[in-house]
């Protein structure tokens, strides 16, 4: 029984028609909203060596965090080892460095993998990191079936926005469907893809573009998995989404509500899903990194709180709140703690979690939800036409002709011009600029991280059985040449032999090739 601060008793929801939990879930997935289960406060962390990030994980869990979320450094995200020529200067900087299974063992040391859920933000080489996680669990006596969590594994938005691709789109989508098939069969608690609008928005897209491109990618993965022989209801219940919470409060709430409605409608009507869980758009949200300002950085605490509230009122399943110092560097521990505390204040002090979809029924909120759906449907129609009735082919075509990236860049430039012309006010940047406190203490990763990691990699290379590594990589190449073989098993074998991430990627590149985008401005 919930009540207001002043003691007024509250129902789980208020309604004069559609209720939370009713198809098409515009008003939320559950009639009890957050009363049954609060959102997961999942704080993204990763820097330095695996041991450094492991310490941050333990600190976040002690502070009341309820899930882990791993940021990898740029070489890891790009499938390159720490000793690759262009890894210099990037090792352990923007996330944690992982080269081999040994790093993954350090990263999750002392963490009960069957008790926490883990999110891993990795795409191009997702299958390799997934394999490492499975083997680490196995070595700790935890069965893969008991592992819960999410791997981002969303390559399509990489070509559109984040640009961390390795192989060309089609073989990359094969790796994704291989992972979906693997977790569907063996890891029932795992979410094999987190279809992500976050990066599309950060690259400059509008809210409607974020919504539409993301869901279109979701439809594309559904089509790819069905093409690979799965039934939609086998895997759709484990698909999840990842959205951005930006600064225009009501537009964001409308976007979240629209996402649920569109996904449910399309999965049911176009893809024939019958399991209600297949129709439910579950999503993680992160506040908008691109909205944070380097000027007067403490103002970002307020921005983050309001963005986070839009995600909560929009019904997010989990949430990462950005730290106020992230326009300048990776967050300090203090800044990350304030960000987590912001979520705890929302959850326990504001009453925002008491009633499901509390904004539902407001004229403006319903209108902007409808408008988001309308704009997204226009974009879907275009993609569908581009693909001659296939969303997957339409998405491929939009990647190939650069139209996704071009439209996002147009929107980014429009925004920038508005800020520069003063038509859009950003507090502390182009208005109210007095009293900039400057920079407080920032987290800096020293060069010794890189040296430590290189030494670690050298150690692993010298101790492993090179013959076993070579054999496992040869088997992987052979399997990659056969489009029908699921690559997860040979990748797990290579990981177990302590093949490096870069070696596994190179083996796959020898078959799949390397993607180079056609750069247009």
């Amino acid at each position, binding site marked *: 029984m919930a009540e207001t601060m002043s003691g007024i008793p509250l129902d789980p929801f208020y309604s004069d028609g559609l209720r939370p939990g009713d198809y098409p879930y515009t008003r939320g997935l559950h009639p009890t909203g957050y009363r049954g289960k609060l959102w997961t406060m999942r704080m993204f962390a990763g820097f330095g060596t695996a041991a450094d990030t492991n310490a941050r994980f333990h600190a976040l869990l002690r502070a009341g965090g309820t899930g882990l979320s791993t940021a990898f450094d740029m070489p890891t995200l790009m499938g390159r080892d720490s000793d690759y020529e262009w890894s210099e200067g*990037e090792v352990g900087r923007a996330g944690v460095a992982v080269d081999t299974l040994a790093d993954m063992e350090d990263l999750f040391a002392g963490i009960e993998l069957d008790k926490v859920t883990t999110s891993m933000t990795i795409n191009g080489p997702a299958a390799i990191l997934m394999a490492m996680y499975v083997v680490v669990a196995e070595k700790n006596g935890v069965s893969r079936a008991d592992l819960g969590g999410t791997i981002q594994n969303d390559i399509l938005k990489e070509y559109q926005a984040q640009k961390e691709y390795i192989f060309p789109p089609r073989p990359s989508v094969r790796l994704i469907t291989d992972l979906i098939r693997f977790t569907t069969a063996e890891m029932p608690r795992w979410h094999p893809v987190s279809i992500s609008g976050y990066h599309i928005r950060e690259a400059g897209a509008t809210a409607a573009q974020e919504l539409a491109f993301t869901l279109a990618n979701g439809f594309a993965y559904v089509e790819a998995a069905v093409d690979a022989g799965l039934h939609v209801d086998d895997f759709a219940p484990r698909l999840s989404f990842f959205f951005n919470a930006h600064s225009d409060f009501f537009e964001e709430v409308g976007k979240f509500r629209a996402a649920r409605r569109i996904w449910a409608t399309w999965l049911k009507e176009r893809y024939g899903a019958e399991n209600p869980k297949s129709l439910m758009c579950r999503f993680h949200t992160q506040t908008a990194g691109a909205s944070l300002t380097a000027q007067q950085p403490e103002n970002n605490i307020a921005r983050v709180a309001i963005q986070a509230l839009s995600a909560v009122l929009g019904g997010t399943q989990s949430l990462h709140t950005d730290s106020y110092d992230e326009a*300048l560097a990776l967050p300090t521990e203090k800044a990350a703690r304030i960000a987590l505390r912001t979520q705890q204040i929302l959850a326990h002090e504001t009453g925002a979690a008491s009633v499901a979809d509390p904004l539902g029924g407001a004229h403006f909120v319903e209108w902007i939800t409808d408008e988001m759906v309308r704009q997204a449907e226009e974009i879907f129609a275009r993609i569908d036409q581009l693909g001659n009735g296939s969303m997957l082919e339409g998405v491929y075509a939009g990647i190939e002709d650069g139209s996704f990236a071009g439209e996002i860049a147009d929107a980014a430039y429009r925004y920038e011009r508005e800020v*520069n012309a003063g038509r859009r006010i950003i507090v502390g940047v182009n208005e109210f600029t007095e009293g900039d406190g400057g920079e407080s203490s920032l987290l800096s990763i020293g060069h010794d991280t890189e040296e430590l990691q290189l030494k670690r990699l050298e150690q692993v290379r010298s101790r492993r059985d090179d013959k076993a590594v070579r054999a496992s990589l040869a088997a992987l190449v052979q399997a990659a040449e056969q489009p029908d073989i699921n690559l997860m098993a040979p990748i797990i074998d290579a990981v177990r032999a302590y093949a490096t991430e870069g070696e596994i990627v190179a083996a796959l590149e020898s078959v799949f090739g390397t993607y180079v985008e056609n750069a247009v401005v």
Partner: protein
Amino acid sequence: MSGISSCPAPAHPHEAPIRVVLAKLGLDGHDRGLKVVARTLRDAGIEVIYLGLRQTTDSIVAACEQEDADVIGLSMHNAGHLTLAPRMVKAARDAALDVPVVIGGIVPAEDVATLISAGVAAVLGPGASAAQVVSTVKAAALQAAGR
């Protein structure tokens, strides 16, 4: 765009417009800022040679030579600037290329002096306005031309 039109175009000795090579060096894929800068410079009458992602010092040097570039603009968002920027400066010097290097992106103020002493011509940090971007590139080109 008032931010640019209000910026007085400095008289410069170039007959032709200033030519800028824009690139991301190494692995970092954050190209939103670089694309915005490319359009901002173009709108200000500067010629942009956009190389885009995953460039190496060699590919940037080659582009500068082929395109007779006046300025190299590199965007960095992954805290690798203290390694990557000096690497670019050295590669240009080794190639006897007298082209100033301007860095933009997420560069904390405390690193700016280090970059300048390593030979970087200018640093445009987070929140730099369009007018600042244009005037910084023009100033770098002018300074190099005056050498």
